[in-house]
């Protein structure tokens, strides 16, 4: 077996090892590739930046364990931005797993920015039903969530007292990994109640939302870890998103390299087998 053949039939565990190193090394030794902010992320940032301090926004955590590496960093960045601007997030979740992630993100950011539960933010918890819940929110938040995630009636939470329905929040942010997610929020909150909707989603699903961005139905969008990294650049706080970007670039290059090697050996192999045929 020639060298080319051996490379072509390479044990896939060697590929796995190279991929693992391509991720671990940049995590330990950051390179700091520049991060270019894409327009859709900047739009989201500007939309939040333009809100007067004290405005309330509804933030829905609609994702689960399998997508949290992509979406959780976005929620950190966005919560930080809200708290720094004095914007008050009202947290909810249409996915049961969303709320634990929201609580984790709140734990981190609330401590950093010194915010108080009930005054600066509220957590309404999880509610099953998707679109039905979104519609109920249009009538009254209290109808959808009689009590918050910790059993307190909404009327006893200062930040909720002036909030009746969508009319009293400035915008809706959705961290979305599927259904119910951004499309449903656009349909109900934006379409029926005219609230600006923005959010974050996995990199895979981002392209399907471009039409909404173009039509102005989405004020802005973060796609995948890259979106989180861009938002972190805008609020000048490097965290999980930025940390991953170097690793991502290197890993990408490694894949392309593999494909090139694969093809080179493939053609080399064909060439040498043709030559062997010629001589024998």
């Amino acid at each position: 077996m020639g060298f080319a053949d051996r490379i072509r039939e390479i044990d896939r565990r060697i590929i796995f090892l190279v991929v693992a190193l391509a991720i671990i090394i940049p995590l330990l030794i950051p390179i700091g590739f520049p991060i270019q902010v894409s327009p859709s992320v900047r739009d989201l940032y500007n939309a939040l930046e333009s809100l007067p301090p004290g405005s309330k926004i509804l933030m829905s955590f609609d994702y689960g364990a399998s997508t949290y590496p992509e979406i959780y960093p976005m929620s950190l960045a966005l919560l930080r931005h809200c708290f720094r601007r004095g914007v008050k997030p009202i947290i909810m979740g249409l996915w049961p797993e969303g709320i634990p992630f929201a609580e984790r993100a709140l734990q981190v950011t609330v401590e950093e920015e010194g915010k108080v539960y009930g005054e600066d933010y509220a957590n309404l918890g999880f509610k099953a039903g998707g679109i039905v819940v979104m519609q109920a929110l249009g009538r009254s938040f209290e109808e959808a969530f009689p009590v918050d995630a910790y059993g307190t009636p909404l009327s006893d939470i200062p930040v909720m007292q002036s909030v009746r329905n969508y009319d009293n929040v400035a915008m809706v942010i959705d961290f979305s990994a599927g259904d119910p997610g951004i499309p449903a929020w656009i349909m109900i909150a934006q379409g029926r109640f005219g609230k600006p909707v923005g959010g974050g989603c996995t990199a895979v699903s981002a392209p399907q939302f471009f039409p909404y961005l173009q039509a102005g139905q989405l004020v802005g969008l973060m796609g995948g870890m890259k979106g989180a990294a861009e938002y972190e650049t805008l609020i000048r706080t490097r965290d999980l998103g930025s940390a991953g970007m170097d690793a991502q670039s290197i890993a990408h290059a490694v894949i392309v390299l593999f494909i090139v090697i694969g093809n080179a050996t493939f053609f080399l192999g064909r060439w040498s087998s043709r030559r062997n045929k010629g001589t024998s």
Partner: protein
Amino acid sequence: MKRQAPLIITFLAGFAMILGYFIPHEPFGSLQQILNTWYMVVAAFAMILGVGNLVKLHSAKIRRRSPGFGYSYVLLAGLAAMALFGITRGIEPGTVFYWMWWNMHVPMSSTMFSLLAFFVASASYRAFRARNVEAALLLIAGILVMIGRVPLGDMIWSRFPDVADWIMNVPNAAGQRAILIGIALGVVSTSLRLLLGIERTYLTGD
């Protein structure tokens, strides 16, 4: 009766869903939602069958001392702990259920998902070879889009992102649309076959 009833039920349930789409007036308007709730309840009941099946198979394994029966203990212990704690003690933060979910289910789930990164690498190493025209097109489109989506590509040639966008928006969009329209027709025809009782293998038997 035994044979006819399921066919009639299939037809009525399907027809109700279609009516609910066209008629906003109650009671039709909320038919889709009501029937969907019913489905969820039936699926929840069926869960007893599934979990029962899992318990049956693994306890049989343990009884027979088949190879690897020790792992069946692990499986049954995990199942029993989650289900019992979850139902009796609740699933909110601070419960045993929640602790197990956060420290076992979540990490295993996302690790399993992350294996994809490795498999994407090995699959592209093997499959992305220009064996023939089709494979070459797959390869070229794949590489151009990959390069165009990272900062590195931008550094090599500033037009790479545009090339990637063009591929996504023109040939890719065309191919995807053809696939989507084809799928829709396949679904329509399959659904009709089921509703009209032409495809009835799932209901046959005595």
